[in-house]
């Protein structure tokens, strides 16, 4: 059973149709990379899945739960949407860390706020908060940030900030983690540390969808690759094959342009 199923997603901004019917699915523990030229709709697709935009039509299912259905026009309660939101995580290109909180608090803030809704929160407050911190510390040490937990975002390098933001997303234990060009805002020498972290996550069987321009990395880390062009999926398949043996002319052109 696929953990993520995206069916015929369409999205227009005004008169421009940005997504013209995008479908794909992904199994648990697999990594999917989305490649494609600028303006092909990769970010818009991720934003539609993560509720930052509302698709015009289509259907999105996560782990058997329909999180979006274009046919269903009933008004959603904000709380319901939030519950669905928590099944998936998103790592932004620009990190979007909270500047006034230190690293540890950035990672724990949302988790602590969510814990307040637990019925046993009042009784076990101390224990719950301690567990949250402990888990965050573990995540941060996995990210190689143990010595930075009291630092503020403005004191960190871009690569470190992006690792914090990955830990922040992981702290909510999403079923799927989405990345929108996680290394594009970084100096070339810092991209390696992020790619290493993502590689580790892939090894631990985290289900991930990654929009990236790093072809070699996509080929190495992902099971499948989707090539988007002008709002549709122009080609998809096993990672190795897509990159080494592109079938459509558009993908061939894209790959040769990238390798220049």
């Amino acid at each position, binding site marked *: 059973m696929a953990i993520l199923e995206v069916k015929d997603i369409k999205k227009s901004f005004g008169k421009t149709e940005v997504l013209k019917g995008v479908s794909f699915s992904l199994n648990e523990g697999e990594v999917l990379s989305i490649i494609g030229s600028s303006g092909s709709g990769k970010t818009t697709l991720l934003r539609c899945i*993560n*509720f*930052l935009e509302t698709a015009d039509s289509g259907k999105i299912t996560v782990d058997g739960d329909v999180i979006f259905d274009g046919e269903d026009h009933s008004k959603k309660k*904000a709380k319901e949407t*939030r*519950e669905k*939101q*928590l099944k998936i*995580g*998103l790592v*932004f290109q*620009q990190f*979007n*860390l*909270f*500047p*006034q909180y230190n690293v540890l608090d950035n990672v724990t*803030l*949302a988790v602590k*706020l*969510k814990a307040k809704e637990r019925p046993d929160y009042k009784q076990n407050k101390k224990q719950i908060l301690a567990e949250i911190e402990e888990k965050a510390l573990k995540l941060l040490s996995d990210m190689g940030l143990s010595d930075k937990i009291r630092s*503020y*975002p*403005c004191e960190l390098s871009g690569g470190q900030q992006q690792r914090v933001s990955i830990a*922040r*997303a992981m702290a*909510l234990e999403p079923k799927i983690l989405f990345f929108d060009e996680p290394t594009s805002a970084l100096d070339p020498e810092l991209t390696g540390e992020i790619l290493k972290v993502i590689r580790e996550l892939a090894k631990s069987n985290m289900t991930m969808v990654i929009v990236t321009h790093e072809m070699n990395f996509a080929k190495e880390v992902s099971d499948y690759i989707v090539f988007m062009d002008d709002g549709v999926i122009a080609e998809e398949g096993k990672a190795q094959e897509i990159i080494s043996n592109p079938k459509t002319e558009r993908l061939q052109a894209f790959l040769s342009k990238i390798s220049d």
Partner: protein
Amino acid sequence: MFWNVTQSLMEGFGKTLEIFALTLLFALPLGLVIAFGSMSKWKPLKLVSKGLVWVIRGTPLMLQLIVIFYGPGLIGSWASQLESTNPLIQWLATWECFDRFTAVIVSFVINYACYFSEIYRGGIESIPKGQYEAGQVLGMTKSQTFFKVVLLQVIKRIIPPMSNEIITLVKDTSLARTISVYEVIWNSEIFIRTDGLLWPLFYTGLFYLIFNGLLTVVFGRIEKKLSYFKA
């Protein structure tokens, strides 16, 4: 003589401080209301808020003082002359002048609330969209995102323009004399007229300098407190 002057100026400056404190007390929250109004998605509310800010910022405070002091009384007597049975007119007929001090506070509060609202609005709108989106993606509610994430960043950004505006308020209190509310400059001017003394006027300046100096220190402290992060 020096003692006389000091006593009189202290009294006047008491009035000044009173106007200052009451204005802040009401204008700070009212400004937030107007700011949310002018950012509202509901067009009529947005239009009314923006219109109010435009009129208040576009006309002198002195004019507003005079209108608010004399206006209600004039409307009242005009309405009672009509001897109409229309309930609205009858209600207008009950309008009377504010007493002088109330008129000063009302004018100052409205005026400063409008200035503050623009500072608040600028601060809120300058927070990058990514902060709200990060909050949403992390499953936080809109109010959690506002209070836990955005608010402190807004405060940090508005402290410098707010401190400017508040120091201007200290000096603007002297306009209260337009409708004969006797603040410190009025009191010191009396010494020119009755005793031909100029120095009480400089002495008055000292009151302002010291008070604004204190405010500058306080705002400096707050800025320093919030300098641990960049936003």
